């Protein structure tokens, strides 16, 4: 029954064995990565199909709150299955010689699934640090001076974030005396004081370094323009979402008060304004996409700040949409890395790539039938229903940001379809390999478009499950004796009253 632990253990084991295996047999080392990822996918999908209600797994047989638990519900298993999937698509198959990048990617995969599944705050911190170290290595993998400098700045910011997050975790421990998320949920009333709330703020800012949250995202444009497009796609698409997931878990379980939600809302709005305006101003595709991803994550944050199920469903939809679209767009910069002016004639050189860009761009803006439209619609209706001055301000910010987004994305598209100089147009040719990777993301997007109705129902189901605080607590403490159950029923009554 504890098979799910393999999704963390296998890639970590493989990551550290890879250098040794690579010494004896290079070809074996090449196959081991994809194989491990497939195994991870198998394990998490098996649980995803089996799961009827959320399950908490006590690792090592220690009952919570003493032991460390893995919390398995639809949301965490969905993320755990997306991790190997997106890694398989972005895997460096062409890399024959080295094993370094593969090793780091496996480390990233293992810690990422740990982050998605874990139900213990300190365990989350450890996986987050592991994830950080792997991402530093990947960001510096180009081995240019610029990549090293960008990674150093990223590391300092991330290190500072870690200190803040650790302080926040320490504060939560002083208030509640526990680190198990469900147990923290039980004792949430003890966190409704200045110390508890500042703990939340510290964790949001600390974990927010990876989630590209407003004041701590200075590293984003630098790292994404110096790292290879595959790594940027991975960091922007997957890693940022996992950091958001941690914040959302904490929010659902322990911080249902208006203060925490307002904090997220304001940070999200600032992120949207800063990200979209910078993207509008930027002169090359890579930086434009990095800033736009800051803006998009701001929207995700705004979505999660809407109380209740409406916010959860909008947030998950925005998150998944960005997870599909942004890696596709970043992969386009593999050959279109020049300034926007030099993109003239790109459509003639590789028409398919230009069409794919249009598809992603339209979905990102939120033009109707595309999935991005439905995600934004959920967000807009959620904001309207919340109906307080601050949420309506957020709505205004969101809609103006959409106009700016439309302007810069369409401007780029127009440049692509304009005539360019012959010598330059040749350089803009996308290789079939890159095109295949991008097409995978496009196919996912179109499939989502076709199956919108069942997908929407599934999302509603996931959101209902993951926004249910009592359910989260109940899952972990189901096997305990009556006192805890009594407490849970009390919480249920409280939430009904509210």
């Amino acid at each position: 029954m504890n098979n799910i632990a393999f999704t963390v253990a296998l890639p970590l084991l493989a990551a550290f064995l890879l250098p040794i295996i690579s010494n004896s047999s290079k070809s074996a080392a090449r196959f081991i990565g994809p194989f491990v990822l497939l195994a991870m996918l198998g394990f998490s999908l098996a649980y995803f199909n089996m799961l009827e209600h959320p399950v908490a797994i006590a690792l090592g047989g220690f009952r919570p709150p003493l032991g460390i638990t893995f919390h398995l519900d639809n949301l965490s298993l969905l993320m755990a299955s997306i991790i190997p999937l997106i890694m398989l698509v972005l895997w460096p198959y062409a890399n024959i010689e080295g094993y370094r990048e593969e090793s780091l990617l496996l480390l990233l995969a293992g810690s990422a699934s740990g982050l998605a599944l874990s139900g213990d705050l300190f365990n989350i911190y450890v996986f987050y640090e592991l994830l950080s170290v792997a991402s530093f290595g990947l960001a510096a993998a180009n081995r240019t001076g610029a990549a090293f400098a960008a990674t150093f700045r990223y590391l300092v910011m991330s290190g500072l974030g870690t200190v803040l997050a650790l302080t926040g975790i320490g504060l939560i421990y002083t208030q509640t005396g526990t680190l198990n998320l469900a147990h923290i949920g039980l004792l949430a009333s003890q966190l409704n004081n200045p110390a508890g709330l500042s703990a939340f703020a510290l964790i949001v800012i600390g974990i927010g370094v990876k989630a590209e949250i407003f004041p701590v995202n200075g590293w984003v444009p630098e790292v994404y323009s110096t790292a290879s497009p595959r790594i940027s796609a991975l960091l922007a698409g997957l890693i940022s979402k996992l950091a958001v997931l941690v914040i959302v878990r904490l929010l659902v379980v322990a911080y249902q008060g208006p203060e925490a939600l307002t904090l997220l809302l304001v940070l999200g709005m600032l992120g949207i304004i800063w990200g979209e305006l910078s993207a509008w101003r930027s002169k090359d595709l890579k930086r434009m996409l990095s800033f736009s991803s800051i803006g998009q994550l701001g929207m995700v944050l705004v979505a999660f700040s809407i109380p209740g199920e409406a916010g959860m469903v909008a947030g998950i939809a925005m998150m998944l949409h960005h997870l599909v679209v942004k890696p596709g767009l970043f992969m386009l910069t593999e050959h279109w890395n020049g300034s926007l002016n030099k993109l003239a004639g790109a459509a003639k050189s590789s028409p398919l790539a230009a069409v794919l860009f249009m598809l992603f761009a339209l979905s990102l803006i939120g033009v109707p039938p595309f999935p991005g439209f439905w995600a934004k619609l959920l967000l807009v209706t959620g904001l309207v229903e919340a109906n307080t001055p601050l949420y309506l301000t957020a709505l205004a910010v969101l809609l103006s940001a959409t106009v700016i987004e439309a302007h810069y994305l369409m401007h780029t598209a127009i440049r692509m379809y304009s005539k360019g100089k012959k010598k330059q147009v040749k350089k803009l040719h996308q290789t079939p390999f890159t095109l295949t990777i991008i097409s995978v993301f496009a196919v996912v997007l179109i499939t989502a478009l076709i199956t919108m109705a069942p997908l929407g129902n599934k999302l509603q189901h996931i959101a209902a499950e993951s926004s249910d605080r009592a359910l989260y607590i109940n899952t972990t403490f189901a096997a305990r004796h009556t006192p805890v159950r009594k407490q849970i029923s009390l919480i249920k009554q409280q939430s009904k009253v509210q």
Partner: protein
Amino acid sequence: MTTDLIHWLLYGGAMGLIVIGIVGVVTLNNIFRIVLALAIAEAGANLLLVIAGYRFDAIAPILTGSSANQLMVDPVPQAMVLTSIVIGVGIQALALALVVKVYQNYKTLDIGEIHQQLSTDIDNSSGVISLLSSEQPAGERPLPEPSAQHETAQLNQGGDK
């Protein structure tokens, strides 16, 4: 009363270390000093965790048999701090390795200069004229052709090597 005072002093000390570290990271110019400031901030966070589980009238959390009935300090934060110290050492080693690499490439330890060179590098690699260039004249000027831009960018890159 005195224990209370000492307690607050300890908390204040830990918080002070964190603040010193953060201020250091934000204000210092030398990247090696930034790494040291980061280490100080980490020490503060670790100290805070240890203090969170400390009790004045308790013994170390080791079961010796004879003193089983005595109060023990909370062992959980100590285990956590052990983990986070190890992680911190790893991160610091990585940071220092990056400092060496940055120095080898940019020949400076000043964060401002590194930032400027980094921006120029990124601009050059994408063929955009640098926005930060101090030689750039203000106002209207004959802008070079896009192709010429690209060539200068390439020349600059060649010069760097």
